[in-house]
């Protein structure tokens, strides 16, 4: 028990790294994914095609392979990223493909009648977007988005395989020193659970309210 309490500061340090990586990935993916998702929903074919290709490519490959590719593969063509940056880049590449899909889906599930009605009462393209489409899209966007935040936190555990001391690797290190495996894995699982469960519950509530 005493050893477990002693290890807690290490685990909390790791947890902070997990949260930092997840937060960076979420924010960057939104910055990349939201505009691209809008283009995929409304844009011309020449703009949609490369985005479609990118999204389908990324979703067909495991995150782990993307991580290895950015960290081990890119240096071969003289792109050297420190491990933390490589991890964030790879996870963002993966997450933004999902955000693109969620954004596109949120807009495309709005009935065409809404746009037609907005046109009929004479709203400009900008007004149609801000007053008619965007408010409805946000409600459809939120539940799957919150779910994908849960996935990000879970997926961030893979950065431990690049040697980044997140919650997962700090657990491994503490277990390596103390040889107390099972209780520590369970504590780690509970820490992930404590972050993710409220988010999952929130996603379900949003879904009930909005959809």
């Amino acid at each position, binding site marked *: 028990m005493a050893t477990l309490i002693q290890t807690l500061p290490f685990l909390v340090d790791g947890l902070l790294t997990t949260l930092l990586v997840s937060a960076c990935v979420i924010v960057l993916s939104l910055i990349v994914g939201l505009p691209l998702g809008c283009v995929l929903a409304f844009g011309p074919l020449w703009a949609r095609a490369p985005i479609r290709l990118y999204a389908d490519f990324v979703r067909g490959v495991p995150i782990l392979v993307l991580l290895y590719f950015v960290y081990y593969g890119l240096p071969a063509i003289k792109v050297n990223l420190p491990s933390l940056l490589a991890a964030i880049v790879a996870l963002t590449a993966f997450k933004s493909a999902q955000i693109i899909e969620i954004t596109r889906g949120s807009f495309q599930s709005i009935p065409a009648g809404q746009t037609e009605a907005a046109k009929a009462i004479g709203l400009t393209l900008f007004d149609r977007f801000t007053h008619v489409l965007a408010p409805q899209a946000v409600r459809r966007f939120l539940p799957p988005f919150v779910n994908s935040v849960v996935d990000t936190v879970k997926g961030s555990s893979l950065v431990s395989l690049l040697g980044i001391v997140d919650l997962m690797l700090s657990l491994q290190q503490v277990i390596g020193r103390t040889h107390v495996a*099972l209780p520590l894995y369970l504590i780690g699982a509970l820490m992930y*659970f404590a972050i993710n469960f409220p988010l*999952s519950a929130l996603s379900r509530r949003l879904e009930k309210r909005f959809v």
Partner: protein
Amino acid sequence: MANYHFNFAIVWRYAGKLFDGLLLSLELAAASIAIGMAIGLVLALISLDGPKWARPLIAAYVEFVRNVPLLLLVYLVFYGIPSAIDLQYDAVTSFVATLSIYSGAYLVEVMRAGLEAVPRGLIEAGKAIGLTPMKVLWHVRLPTAMRIALPSLSNTYVSLFKDTSIASAIAVPELAYGMRWIETQTFRTVEVYLLATPIYLITSYAILLLLRLAERRYRIAR
């Protein structure tokens, strides 16, 4: 990029490693999905028709597994459990067990949604022609639920196939492991990725395409 000299010949020599890896990945996915489907189906039926007290237990299992990283579960089963109790198993068994438990938690939800979407009238019609509850389940509810659930199942199956890459973390020689192994042997990093990434890509989409064909074949006519 300009001064990188491609040398596929060395990587080709180890291409068998990738092929064996892919086969093992597919086997891991197939075994885990089969067991996961059994877990999912049984638990979905229990949570719909079974005793009330079983529901929170099933919910606890689903929520725990879905909110914890797969990598942690893999370590927990492979390193954690044998350290506490006297039980020996190899990495492949350990990973299949983990991915089965993991997929089960996702498949319960999918199967429950499918079973709930079976129209009441169908079940009543089954009862009306004198089918026993077992026969209603086997001939009416399950076939209908499977057809309704198939689109969501397809997506889950493909993502489970991709999740087999995590087995490389406990040195199961599947595709991602083979990829890293060749890379550390030959240092032909770019070539290895140019070969291995399309393998994942093509396999993922081939699985998806087959399932989409099945969806179309078994779609409920409206």
